[in-house]
């Protein structure tokens, strides 16, 4: 029971708001106000802050019940309903943004109130108390309201405790290379394509990548140095298509001035070598 009381106590996290037992209705300039003001002037903003601090109709109802130290199981529904409606009217007057849920609750309270007034048929002892559903909801809400307060009180990082972070001397952190998805590479290329106009020509669009690949292979072969017989660059097992690819690659490389063809004399074997390279 005291547990639940505390739930109410911590309630609005604004220091000057109602606490315990005889909860003041509000605190105005340091002085607690114990009852709804009739003719007293209250600074509207103080009242607004107070009324605005309710998390909804259930929260407001709980406040009304706890304020009077009532047992949640024995709510004097008529009184509470009247008080609730007074508050809701007040909120309306102050033009607070009033969630529709407040009005739904007002209607529900009025209905319970009228059902309570009806005489209970003698035999129907097992009929549920009209307040039962409301009581269940209030308790259910209150336990989580309380749980939220307790959660907030748990020692947490960045407020109550802090992570430590000692540095490691340089040279000792070896990082594994990340995994890369081909899609990421292609998306990066799309980004380049959007920026560069180099690729706009249709020739490049249609260019077979196999030629590019072969250019690299040929370059690598001739890089070893010296002359490579022209014929050795062709692998006849690849068939006609493969031969064409190699031939196109050679033409591209010659055009790019990467390699040159050398022939000692007419009809002698042709050799390929790296341009400008004794490398």
């Amino acid at each position, binding site marked *: 029971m005291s*547990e*639940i009381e505390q*739930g109410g106590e911590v309630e*609005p*996290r604004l220091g000057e708001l109602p606490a315990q037992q005889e909860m003041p209705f509000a605190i105005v300039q340091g002085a607690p106000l114990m009852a709804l003001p009739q003719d007293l002037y209250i600074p509207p903003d103080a009242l607004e802050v107070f009324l605005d601090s309710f*998390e*909804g*109709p*259930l*929260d407001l109802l709980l406040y009304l019940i706890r304020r009077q130290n009532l047992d*949640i*199981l024995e709510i004097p529904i008529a009184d509470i309903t009247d008080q609730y409606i007074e508050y809701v009217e007040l909120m309306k007057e102050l033009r607070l943004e009033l*969630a529709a*849920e407040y009005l739904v*609750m007002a209607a529900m309270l009025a209905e319970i109130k009228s059902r309570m007034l009806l005489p209970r048929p003698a035999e129907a002892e097992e009929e*549920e*108390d009209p*307040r*039962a559903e409301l*009581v*269940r*909801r209030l*308790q*259910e*809400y*209150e*336990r*989580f*309201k*309380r*749980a*939220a*307060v*307790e*959660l*907030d009180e*748990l*020692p*947490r*990082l*960045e*407020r*109550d*405790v*802090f*992570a*430590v*972070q*000692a*540095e*490691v001397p340089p040279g000792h952190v070896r990082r594994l290379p990340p995994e890369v998805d081909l899609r990421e590479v292609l998306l990066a290329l799309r980004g380049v394509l959007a920026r560069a106009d180099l690729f706009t020509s249709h020739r490049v669009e249609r260019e077979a990548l196999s030629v590019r690949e072969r250019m690299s292979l040929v370059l690598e072969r001739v890089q070893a140095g010296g002359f490579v017989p022209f014929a050795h660059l062709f692998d006849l097992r690849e068939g006609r298509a493969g031969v064409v690819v190699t031939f196109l690659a050679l033409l591209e490389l010659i055009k790019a001035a990467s390699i040159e063809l050398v022939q000692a004399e007419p009809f002698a074997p042709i050799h390929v070598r790296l341009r400008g390279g004794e490398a």
Partner: protein
Amino acid sequence: MTGAFGLKQIIEGALLAAGGPLTPDQLLGLFGEEERPDRDQVLETLASLEADYAERGIELVQVAGGYRVQVRREVAPWVGRLWEEKPVRYSRALLETLALIAYRQPITRGEIEDIRGVSVSTSIVKTLAEREWIRIVGHRDVPGRPALYATTRKFLDYFGLRSLNDLPTLAEIRDPELLGDELDLGEMDESPAQGDPSPPVVVPTPEAGRDG
């Protein structure tokens, strides 16, 4: 191992450098096969470090993600001044939403609203997701297929919890029907003794399992 510096120094160095919790397995993984201590030795070392820290500005705690060295609560008021910004204060609405997700997971937004009696703002759900305290673990198979929210390991680590079972016990619900008939309490479907005895546990999905 390396002269005066051995298992204890390596584990201490790792815990202090990691910037987050480490599991015993992660600690074991720091050693090559031929030098690897056994698990019990690691646990003993952890206990020994915990004792060493009793009078220091730091402490060793166990959270969901493993063992973590953290600056003690007792000195936090001073240490916190290192940073200009004050720690964030979360609204009641956010904390109540988080509490409902923690205790009632997996739960939909509509179910949270039913209990709180007011709507849950999108910005709250967004904040909780951005902090990686909650995540969507599925969808309820009803019209609209609302998302089901659950808390993450990061949530547990952040609040210094080893598991959801470490959460404070929920207050009990009293049934007006059973007032004055306390012997009957056992029949209530909400076990009154511990509130929610075992909140459902959500098996971490691959991306959630290895965040830290």
